[in-house]
């Protein structure tokens, strides 16, 4: 039995950069203006919040009237594009204080954009960002590997993963390889 009124915060999914980069499908759960927007990750789960840990390699301030910051966060598989604007002043100021390179933990919302030349880009709108250490980065790689493998094991048995199959034609073995390669970069 589900309590109707109790608000449940969306969990932050763990996802590697190379998987997030392939994400193309976005949908709204419900008709309401305030209904949450999700992306379907290729490994077969909906997500409207993600948790990533990696190295902030670059940070740029942009805009005159509406200031915002862009950044690149690198994990063993690729790069996340993050941004924080004046709608998230706390997150923006946190990002403004951090000097790259640094290990950072980011909680944020995945967003899809289409560029002028028709390419689809995924960026992460930062809700919070903080400086962490290498241990936390390594723990995150293990955590993300575990959760990705869990999703791949359940692939084809859930509604979201069937949707992922339809949208991306996901080949679970390709993602197992990505997980494996990511793990090999963690130093013992």
């Amino acid at each position, binding site marked *: 039995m589900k309590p109707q009124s109790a608000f*449940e915060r969306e969990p932050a999914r763990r996802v590697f950069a190379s998987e997030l980069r392939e994400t193309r499908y976005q949908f709204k759960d419900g008709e309401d203006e305030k209904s949450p927007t999700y992306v379907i990750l290729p490994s077969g789960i909906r997500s409207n919040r993600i948790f990533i840990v990696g190295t902030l390699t670059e940070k740029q301030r942009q805009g005159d009237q509406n200031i915002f910051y862009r950044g690149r966060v690198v994990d063993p598989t690729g790069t996340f594009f993050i941004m924080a604007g004046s709608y998230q002043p706390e997150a923006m100021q946190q990002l403004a204080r951090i000097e790259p390179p640094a290990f950072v933990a980011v909680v944020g919302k995945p967003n899809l954009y289409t560029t002028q030349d028709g390419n689809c880009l995924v960026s992460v709108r930062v809700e919070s960002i903080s400086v962490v250490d290498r241990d936390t980065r390594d723990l995150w790689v293990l955590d993300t590997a575990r959760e990705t493998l869990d999703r791949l094991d359940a692939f084809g048995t859930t509604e979201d993963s069937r949707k992922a199959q339809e949208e991306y034609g996901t080949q679970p073995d390709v993602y197992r390889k990505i997980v494996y390669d990511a793990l090999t970069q963690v130093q013992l």
Partner: protein
Amino acid sequence: MNLSEVTERISRKLEAKGAQPDRQKIESRLRRLAEEFGVNIDEAERTVTADLAREYNLTGVGNVGNASTELRPISEIVPGDWVTIEGKIVALTPALSPSIAQSGIVADSSGAIRFVTWTRANAPAMEYGHWYRIESAVVDEYKGTPNLKIHSGTTISRMEKDAPLLPSVTPVAELKPGVGSVRAKVIQDWEVSHERMLQTGLLGDETGTIKFVIWKEDGAGPSGGTGPAAPKEPLGKDKLELDAVYNIFYATVDEYNGRLSLALNTAMYITDEGDIEVGRNESEIQGALVHVAPGSGLIKRCPVEGCNRTLSRQNYCPVHEIQPNFRYDLRLKAVLDDGIRAHNVLMQREIVEKLAGITLDEAVAIAETNPLGMDEIFYRIRNAVLGRYYTCAGSEFGGRLLVNSCTPITFKPEELAALLNRAGGEAA
């Protein structure tokens, strides 16, 4: 079961709605379905009732789910069933609406269920403490709780039976919305939060804890002895004593926002000699700390005895107003996220001091000299914990984990090895 019995029941149901059905016709239809087409009796009864109801243009006659005159134990009935039960009235509660004639709890040796008799049913009033056979009542769900509805098609007959009932006791952790009997200890007695409340607090047994409430009843005076031989019209309940163990029979289990609580107004309770080691339903969560909520860090608390509420920045307590002689405290309200679920956690001073590497005294000293004041402590604690992995153990209460211990998760090479095997094993 023979067809004339079924025929009789169908006719009565239709007659109750003002129709004059032809019994022979009913029986021949039943016979045709049952004998020619091999339909089982229950289904034949349902079909014929529904057909005739349509012919006579009646509504609310049809049987949904199983129609059955077969006697069922109360513990086995589920919403959607049409049932016949034999049970004892173990509680009567005031009707909340003029369309309800009677409500309460009926029990047999297997269990108990709440019931409601509609005024329109014109059913005879049932008396507390007596046994009744209730035929063709329907079970539905009201606010997540199974409820037996006695309507105009239900037949009630009083039974000349007085079997003693010993309700089976349910562990607190396994209670479900509806009716429950527990053996539990009063571990906390809280200040009542509403003028209609007589008492509220926390009950616990080996398996867990649950909030309880006793409401004041209309016309409640100084109550006489309650206990097992409850009076016919139970007036006013007794309070429970702190630290005493009680057998509580037929309390109402309610659910609100996913939390259960026990209302004891329908219950009888007797003290029990023994003692109980109350289980704290400790749970453990591992995850990343993804959010530090406002209200974390250095806070001020109301100094009034027993209040302890958090004061606003202007030292205002919602109950005791301005309190310049507040006490400082440290706490952390955060979200620990395991990737599948986001859990709210609440940490008290000792744990926050260890986690953030700052003592309360240091925090106060910083706050009083730093231009950012208490915000500075919020930022320091946030920067120390946000985005890091922890294992938190504690007791879950009100959708929040009250943390008793919190340790940072450390990197374990064997986990890496296991994951490498898992990822590589199948892909290669």
